[in-house]
Structures are given as C-alpha cells and as structure tokens.
C-alpha cells in the first residue's frame, strides 16, 4: 500500500491536486464563494496528501527517482529525486499549507467583492505546488523553473492587496531581490555545468571531484548569497520585512514559515550533499552569517510596532539560528567529525520544522487580530485578550515557543543548537574555537532578546486596556481560523514533548547525505524521552520539563488566586491623586517597553527619537496637552549598502544614456568608429 503512495504516481497526484485547485480557481473567478471553496478544498486535499506522501517516504525508506515525460529541450529534464531530506521538506510544506488553507477558508472572506478570489486561489495553489517542486526537483534548470514559479506566484500574492501602494512597493522590492538572488543561483549552476557538464544534481554530485577548489569557493559564495537572499540572511534580508506583512496572513504564514526554508534546503543539499568535502572556513562563514542574522533580526524586531513586520524580523532571526546549526554541521564535517556534524544538522532541521510551526501560528493569530482591528500597529491594540481569548491563548503558545521556553518545541531545537555550538568550543584550532564562542554568545543573546520582544508583543497586543478605537469592536475569529491556530498550537506542544521521538527521523535524513555516511549517533534518546548529547555531556528531559512547567504554572495560579488575591478586593473608585481614572494613556506602550533596550544598542540600530509636544496654551508652555514620542531606526542597509549600489547603477545608466545624445552626426560617427576599430582588429 505505502509503496504505491511513494511511487511517481503518488507525487504526480500531489501536484495535480494543486494544479486542479489553480485551474478551478480560474474557471470560477467570477464567483467568490465557490472559488474560495474550490481552492481551499484542493489545497487542503493536496497538503493532506503531501503529509501522507512524505510520511510514507519516511516509513518505506526508499528514495524516489523519476522523470516526468521526455523533455524536448536539451539539458532540461523534468526529473525528481525525493530522498528523506526532500520528504522532510515536503512534509513541512504540506503541514503548514494544510493549516494555512484551513485558515484561508474563513480568512479570505473579507476580500470578497474587493479583489478576485479566483486569482488568489490560482496563485496560492501554484505557490504551494512551486514549493513542492523546488524541494523535489533534481535538475538545475527544472529547479530554477520551480524556484521562479514559487517566487513569481508569491510576488502576486504579496501585491494581492494592490490598492495599498506600500504593498506594491514591498512586492517590487521582493521580486527584484529574489531575481537578483536567482541570478547568483544561475551562475552557481552554470559553474556546475561548466565543470561537470550537467545540470542534473546526481551527476553533479558524482562529478563534484572535477570542480576545482576556486570554483567551489565561488559556488559557495554564489549559493550563500543566492539562497541566502531567499532565506533572508543579513544583509540580503531587506525585502523580507516588507513582503511578508504585505501578503494575506495565511500566505505570510507560508512565506515566513516555509518558503524561506527552501533556501535552507538548497544550502543543505549543495553544501552538505553535493560539494563534500568542503573547506573548514565555509562552515565558519555560515556560523558568522547565522550569528549576525539572528542578532540583527531580533534587534530590529524589538524596534517594530507593526506586528507582522515584527514577526518577519523574527524570521530573519530564526533563519540565523538554523544557519548556526547548519554552520556547525559544515564545520564538523570538514574537521572529520561526522557525529558532531550530524548533531548540528539535527538541530538545524528540527528548528526548521519548529520555526515553521510556531511562526505560521503567530502569523495566523496576528492575522486574526488584524482582521478584527484593521491595523497592524501594535500601539493601537491592547486588551484584546478580553475580546479574543482563544486567539490570545494561541498567540501566547506561539510566543512561548519562539522564545524557546520549555516545554514547547522551540526550546528543544535551540537546546540542540546550543549543544552543537558547545561542542565546537572544545575544538583546538583558534579560529574555529572563537567562531563557536561568538556564535554561542550570539545565540544566547538572541534568545534573551526574543523573549523580551515577545513579552512586548503579547503584552502590548492582548493585555491592559484598548488603546485604539477598533479594539472594542473586535470579536473572536470564526471557526476555521481558530481550528487552524489551535492545531498549530497543539503541534507546538506535541513537537516539544515528543521531541525525543523526532530526533531519530532527523538522524535518518542526515545519514543519506554525503557528509554523514555511517556516522555514529551523538544524540541518545532514552525510552523516557530524555535526550542526551555525547556521553552524558548534557541532557534534557521533556517529560520532566513538562511536569516542572505544569507545576510552576499551577503554583503561580494557586498563589495568585488564593494567597495574593485573598486579602485584596477589587474596588472601583477615584484614584488617589486628583480623582483621575485609570486610562489607556497610563499604559506602557510597545515603544516605551522596547526603548531602553533599543538605546543600549543604539550603536547598531541608530535610533532616531522625535519628540513632539502640544501645549494647551502655546504661550505659556507649562501645561502640555499631548506628548508624542516617535522612535524609529534608520535603515542602515538601505543607506550604506543598497543606496550607494543603486546610485552607482543609476549613474552608469545616465552615462549610458549619453550615447543617445540626439545628435545624428554623433550617431554616424559611432558607426564609422566601430567600422574602423573592427577593421583594424581584423587586419
């Protein structure tokens, strides 16, 4: 039974479900509700099948290799190769797509009549299909086709709400960045072709020894920049905070949760699979890039009050964390320690899965909030827990997971990342040792700041009193939204508690890659789900943590309810001073909360503080009426990297336009000069 699922037929069925969803959406584009029903139905069916398919590949343990049809064009073959790494990513894509689609059923209703639901469904289904193709294609050109389908369809999803000029701008930046990134990828593949004569990944892998080291180094940088642009590593991340928030929330969940991971997938595939063995400094470079990304990501997240942008910056941070795992895997494999390398890879893959789950959960719940309040500005939220208690709970679970609080899933993958970094610190070589020390520091720092950031995000959104007029009208979201969020929250908990069961799966993925043939495991999982690294170097037990967590929670609840509250009574009356009632103006705002931390990092963030005071009487400046503080951060990458670059190319463009001066005599002289030069080249 499973072998029929894991045949080429099974995968083609998977793709055709999404294709049917897309095609039907076009047919039904004139009718909003049927289009929505059709596309959701097929994307849900498709992603369920995808989950089933991926699990079957895991269970049967067979690689699936096949070519769909014979291509008429040379070099291009529509060939697929689905090993466990691909299956894992198919699983992640399908899992998040399933809940996003479920969420979409209810969520897209508010677009009815304003925009074409058919177009949304069309691009949405193609987007998912594109991601599935990306992680399963085994030919460079075919991969690029899939990659661009994914990029272009997601572009159209980003600009879907096209009446908002900011979305169009964000989409523009997104597409040009991804296109520039693709140019780097194309160059990397061309170098593969140059030395191995093929675009087929399997052939390239077999012929990797033919690639000289200098070309390998070039490929490394090209791949890191190309795929890193998609993954959102600093400084190529600039598109991400704009594009992810601009898309409809269930698409943001897919983009932030899954799409950026396709970059990680290809980095694993190329660096750990195809190009082995690699120099040590590659791994160290990835570690440094990961450290910078995680730190910068979380610092910028702190400064945001746009809830979706905040989440987008956290995606940059988490990609950095995944890269820390990947970087240590690369370093260890170059140093000839496959077991340790496997640990790093497990951490990276596990965090990939976890981040997909909790980030999409967070995007979906923020989408619910935005849907009710019609703003993304956290300063206009407040007190939503009273209006949307379930959403608040789901958001809390996601926030705890992303802040790596036990016993949720984020904790375990970050713990594993820490373990692999700790192992690196024990290395002898100076550069290796210190890179790992820096990376560990960065990760520790990031964890702390992320926690602070989500205290801010949750507090400013759900606690205290409403600060905006829209909050009072907020209602709990509809069933499909809550079901999707609830399921993801449940997964966050389950992946945490049963993390021990998942680790062998990740190990088996690694064992298929070139770098880890027959590597003994460095991680032990006891029957009681204790995870132990090395020979008792350190260990963690999910059940114990769960019990401890439950114990602490109940202790706090009991203490608050019966000890602290016992002697207190709620009494409403005039406050002690001038009889002023408590209002939302006395709350701490998100800006206020983050301000002290931002000021600590002002060297990096370059904050700008604008204060405006409006007086009751402009002549006697004693009684201020309102006081506004606008805290912003300057766009460092824009002003120091991209602006000069743009200026340079625009300058070149202006120079080039001088050719077209409008003077016909000059034009003829070009021909004459070209002729003379060509003649003298010949003679």
């Amino acid at each position: 039974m499973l072998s029929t699922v894991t045949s080429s037929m099974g995968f083609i069925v998977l793709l055709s479900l999404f294709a049917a969803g897309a095609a039907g959406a076009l047919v039904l584009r004139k009718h909003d509700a049927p289009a929505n029903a059709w596309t959701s139905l097929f994307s849900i069916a498709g992603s369920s099948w995808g989950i089933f398919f991926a699990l079957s590949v895991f269970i049967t343990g067979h690689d699936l290799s096949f070519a769909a049809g014979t291509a008429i064009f040379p070099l291009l073959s529509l060939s697929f190769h689905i090993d466990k790494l691909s299956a894992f990513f198919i699983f992640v894509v399908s899992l998040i797509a399933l809940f996003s689609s479920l969420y979409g059923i209810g969520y897209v209703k508010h677009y009815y009549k304003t925009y074409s639901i058919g177009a949304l469904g069309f691009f949405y289904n193609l987007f998912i299909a594109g991601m599935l193709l990306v992680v399963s294609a085994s030919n460079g050109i075919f991969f690029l086709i899939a990659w661009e389908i994914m990029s272009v369809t997601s572009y159209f999803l980003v600009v879907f709400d096209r009446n908002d000029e900011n979305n169009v701008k964000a989409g523009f930046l997104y597409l040009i960045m991804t296109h520039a990134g693709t140019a780097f990828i194309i160059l990397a593949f061309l170098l593969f072709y140059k030395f191995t004569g093929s675009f087929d990944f399997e052939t390239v892998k077999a012929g990797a020894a033919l690639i000289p080291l200098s070309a390998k180094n070039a490929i490394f940088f090209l791949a890191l920049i190309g795929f890193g642009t998609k993954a959102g590593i600093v400084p190529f991340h600039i598109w991400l905070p704009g594009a992810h928030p601009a898309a409809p929330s269930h698409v943001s969940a897919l983009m932030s949760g899954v799409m950026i991971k396709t970059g990680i997938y290809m980095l694993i595939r190329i660096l750990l699979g195809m190009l082995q063995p690699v120099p040590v400094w590659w791994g160290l470079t990835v570690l440094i890039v990961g450290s910078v990304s995680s730190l910068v990501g979380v610092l910028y997240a702190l400064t945001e009050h746009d809830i979706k942008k905040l989440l987008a910056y956290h995606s940059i941070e988490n990609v950095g964390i995944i890269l820390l795992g990947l970087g240590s895997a690369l370093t260890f494999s170059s140093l000839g320690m496959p077991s340790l390398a496997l640990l790093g890879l497990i951490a990276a893959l596990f965090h990939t899965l976890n981040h997909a789950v909790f980030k999409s959960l967070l995007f979906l719940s923020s989408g619910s909030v935005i849907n009710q309040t019609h703003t993304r500005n956290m300063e206009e939220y407040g007190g939503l827990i009273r209006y949307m208690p379930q959403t608040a709970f789901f958001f809390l679970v996601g926030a705890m997971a992303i802040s790596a609080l036990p016993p949720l899933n984020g904790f375990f993958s970050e713990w594993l990342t820490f373990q692999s970094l700790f192992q690196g610190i024990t290395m002898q070589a100076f550069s290796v040792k210190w890179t790992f020390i820096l990376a560990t520091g960065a990760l520790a720092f990031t964890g702390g700041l992320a926690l602070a950031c989500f205290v801010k995000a949750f507090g400013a959104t759900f606690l205290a009193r409403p600060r905006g007029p829209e909050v009072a009208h907020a209602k709990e979201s509809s069933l499909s939204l809550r079901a999707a969020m609830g399921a993801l929250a449940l997964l966050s908990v389950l992946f945490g508690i049963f993390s021990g069961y998942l680790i062998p799966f990740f190990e088996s993925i690694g064992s298929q890659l070139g770098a880890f043939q027959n590597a003994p495991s460095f991680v032990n999982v006891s029957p009681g789900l204790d995870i132990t690294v090395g020979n008792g170097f350190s260990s963690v037990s999910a059940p114990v943590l769960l019990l401890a967590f439950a114990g602490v929670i109940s202790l706090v609840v009991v203490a608050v309810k019966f000890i602290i509250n016992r002697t207190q009574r709620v009494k409403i009356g005039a406050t002690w001073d001038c009889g002023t009632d408590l209002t939302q103006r006395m709350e701490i705002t998100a800006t206020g909360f983050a301000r002290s931390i931002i000021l600590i990092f002002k060297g990096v963030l370059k904050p700008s503080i604008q204060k405006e005071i409006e007086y009751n009487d402009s002549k006697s400046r004693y009684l201020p009426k309102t006081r506004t503080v606008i805290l912003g951060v300057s766009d460092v990458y824009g002003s120091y990297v991209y602006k000069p670059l743009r200026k340079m190319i625009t300058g070149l463009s202006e120079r080039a336009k001088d050719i077209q001066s409008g003077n016909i005599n000059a034009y003829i002289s070009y021909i004459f000069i070209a002729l003379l030069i060509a003649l003298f080249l010949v003679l």
Partner: protein
Amino acid sequence: MNIWVLRLLLEIVFLTVVFLHLVKKNYGAVLAYTIQSLAIVAVLFNSFLETGGMSLLLIALLALIVKVILAPLFFVRMIKKNGLRFSVSTYLNIPLTLIVIAAITAIAHSQKLAPLAEIVPANHALLSLALSAMLLSLVLIINRKGALSQIIGILSFENSIIAFAVFAGLEQSPSLQAGILFDLFVWLVIATVFMAMIYKHFGSLDVTSMKHLKD
C-alpha cells in the same frame, strides 16, 4: 577606354568628394555631385564599350537619368523654393578638415587596407582611390550639419562604392543594377520629401536642430 582616362574619371570622383568637404554653398555641392555622377556614368559607359552588352548601355542611361538629371533637379528645386543658398556649418573648420582628409586618404592607401586594393592587382591605385573616396564620403556625412549635405554625402558614398565595384570587377548583372538604381531613385524621392518636411517643421535644414529624441 584608356586606363588613363579611367584613372582621370576616378580622380574626378575623388576630387569632387574633397570639394564637397570644402564647399560652402549648396549649389556648389549639387554641382560637385553632378560632376561626380557624370564621371560614374562615364565609367559605366566604359563597361558597355568594353563588353558591348546593350543592357549595360541601358544601365548607364538609367544612371544618367537618375543621378545626373533627376537628383540635381530635385536638389536645385529644393534650394530655390526655400532659398537655401548656403549650406549649414560643419564641425571641423577647413584646415582641420584638410588634415582629416589627408589622414583618411593615407589610411585608405596604407598597408592596412592594401588587401582590399589588391583584389585586382592591376587596379591597385584605382581601388585605393575609390576606397578613400568612400571613407571621405562617410566623414563628410559626419562632419556636415546640413540635411542636403548629408544626402549628397550618402549619394557620393554610393557612387564611390559603384566605382570600387567596377574597378574590382564586382559589377552585378544589369537587372540587379537596375534594381539598385530603382531603390536609389525611391530613396532620393523620399529623402527629398523628408528634407522639405524637415524644413517645414524645424525652419532650417540644420540636422542638429533635431535633438529632441534622447535617452
């Protein structure tokens, strides 16, 4: 015909190009072109004398009609109608123009371009001369700002190519030559019409006034 006569004809072609470079008045330019065309027609007529093919005579007659009669006629009418006695200025002044002419002639006669002149070794000097006439015509188009001068430059370029072809033994069959002449005739009509329209739109024949299409 004697080779010396041919040589003289070609020298006339060359000299008229040089004259076109120096002339200030439009009538002078038209006159120079007429003389040049006449020399070319004489060269074509020579081919007829050598081979005796009647069709070649026809070609020579056609060339006479188009180049020596019609073209100057069009130009003179144009000049008269619009009172354009002086051609518009040049980029290079006369001494500089002379230096450029000398340089281009030297290039055309140099060893570098010798392979082209060696096509028919007997006509080496003639071919070099025709080649310099070609290059000088191109320079003329570049150097002159007047629309009429540019048109005459192109026609003179075409004449030099014909001269080169004849002496290099690359003449085409009469029917093709007739086709080329027909093309030239249509081109002439169109160019003249355009010139009139340019004068109407821009108030002068100065092509540098047409510089609005940039970027």
